[in-house]
């Protein structure tokens, strides 16, 4: 593992976070800090609340209780300019969510122009640079529908990067992809990690977590069960729930049929 110089101040800080959908308590007291330049992978069974936690970090979900800080700004402050904070937080979705009525270049330049008020030439230049970073310069004038899933996801990453974020959030970025397309997206994410981007990644890609993450967080039932280096959490998990999850994940065929876990929380997606 490459040693990185990590900033001391936490870029993302979550304190006592609770989130309920109606009677369904999805997050029950989350405390988490992610330092500048750190790459943290959040793993856990579906319904464990990991996606909800990620979406709380840029307030796409409104927390029921608790605080979220990004770059020192409290997002949960009712008077915060949430749009201004979100400009510093890039988000990549499982379903890509490119704007289908715009070309690839327009997908990258329209947000810059409308949100950051960059002029046309600057926006186009930044768009081209970021498309090159994800290796898709030749698709600049294509529409998203004509791209493969892996290409769409790389464009989505480039779109987020074009806004110049300090933090990137990834919500299962490879889960909707055909297996042979996963590698390209992970390669881009690896590049970002090497460049020192602060990243919070909800994922099922254990190899990626093991090789790229500085820390792995295992969630189950709306709480953080385990939090440590990849070697600790994936290599030698301390908790039975973590071991159980990892064994099922690494060898799905061997998992014995068992009774439903007591509380299936969250809207698994």
């Amino acid at each position, binding site marked *: 593992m490459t040693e990185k110089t990590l900033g001391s101040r936490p870029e993302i800080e979550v304190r006592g976070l609770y989130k309920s959908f109606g009677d369904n308590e999805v997050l029950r007291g989350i405390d988490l800090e992610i330092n500048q330049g750190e790459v943290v992978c959040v793993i856990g069974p579906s319904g464990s609340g990991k996606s909800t936690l990620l979406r709380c970090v*840029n307030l*796409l979900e409104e927390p029921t209780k608790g605080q979220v800080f990004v770059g020192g700004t409290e997002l949960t402050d009712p008077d915060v300019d949430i*749009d*201004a904070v*979100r*400009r510093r*937080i*890039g*988000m990549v*979705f499982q*379903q890509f*969510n*490119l*704007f*289908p*009525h715009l070309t690839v270049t327009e997908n990258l330049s*329209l*947000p810059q122009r*409308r*949100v*950051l008020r960059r002029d046309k030439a600057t926006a186009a230049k930044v768009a081209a640079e970021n498309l090159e970073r994800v290796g898709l310069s030749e698709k600049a004038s294509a529409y998203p*529908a004509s791209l493969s899933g892996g290409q769409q996801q790389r464009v*989505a990453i480039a*779109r*987020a990067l074009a*806004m110049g974020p300090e933090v990137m959030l990834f919500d299962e970025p490879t889960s909707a992809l055909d297996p042979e397309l996963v590698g390209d997206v992970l390669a881009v994410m690896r590049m970002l990690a090497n460049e020192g981007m602060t990243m919070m990644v909800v994922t099922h890609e254990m190899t990626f977590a093991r090789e790229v993450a500085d820390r792995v967080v295992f969630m189950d039932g709306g709480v953080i069960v385990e939090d440590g280096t990849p070697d600790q959490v994936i290599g030698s998990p301390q908790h039975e729930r973590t071991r159980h999850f990892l064994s099922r994940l690494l060898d799905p065929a061997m998992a014995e049929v068992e009774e439903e876990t007591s509380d299936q929380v969250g809207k698994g997606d």
Partner: protein
Amino acid sequence: MTDTTGNDVRLQPKQPKKKGLTRRQKRSLSRGIQYVVFVAAVIAFAVAADWDRLANQFAQEDIAEQMFPEVITLALKNTVLYTVSGFAVGLVLGMVIALMRLSSVGPYRWLAGVYIEIFRGLPALLIFIFIGVAVPLAFPGTEIPGGTYGKVALALGLVAAAYMAETIRAGIQAVPKGQMEAARSLGFSPARAMISIIIPQAFRIILPPLTNELVLLFKDSSLVLFLGVTLEERELSKFGRDLASQTANSTPILVAGLCYLLVTIPLGFVVRRMEAKAQEAVK
């Protein structure tokens, strides 16, 4: 008819011989019967109708000739003008109402709902009369700007807005939720995301139904005659009726009708083209 039903035994050697007709044969038989009935009905009508009297009443060439060029330069022009202005008012108002209907503010939703229920439930005719009579009574001395043109735009717009609001709302809701989330996560404000990202996509979805609304308005513009119009403000229906009573002949009605079709048929064609294109884009 090139089918060779059942004659080619070599093609189906293993089919067990069934009694009666195969499904396919039954289908072509039933189709054949339908054609025969249809053609017989057309012939019956053609023979029974008194063509001479019809032609006399509806297709007098000299009367039709009298109508030109005013039927185009005046009547059709006014019809188009009324329709387009009503559509524009309806589109703007409909957009506002649709956004109110989707608002998180309760009273806005409620107001929009009331508006839609009222104006969708009332005949357009009553709204024309209301604009023509009630508004001058309620606000004496006020003139709706643009005279008859303004009144028509308002009346047609009020009716159209109710329908268009529902269409636009459906279109906005048909845009996947992830689009708004992606826009918000990039720092778009809700209003800016709506304008830059959601509404352009919604309009692609609702272009065909909106164009249908345009066709409906085109026909509803005939209700102008209940506002009382000057000679210069007449549109197709009024123009046709006036001339029909002057000449005691219905030829102008037929010509006016053809003028409507002159516009609605190409519009319908455009709608189908757009629907086909939209289908393709989804694939």
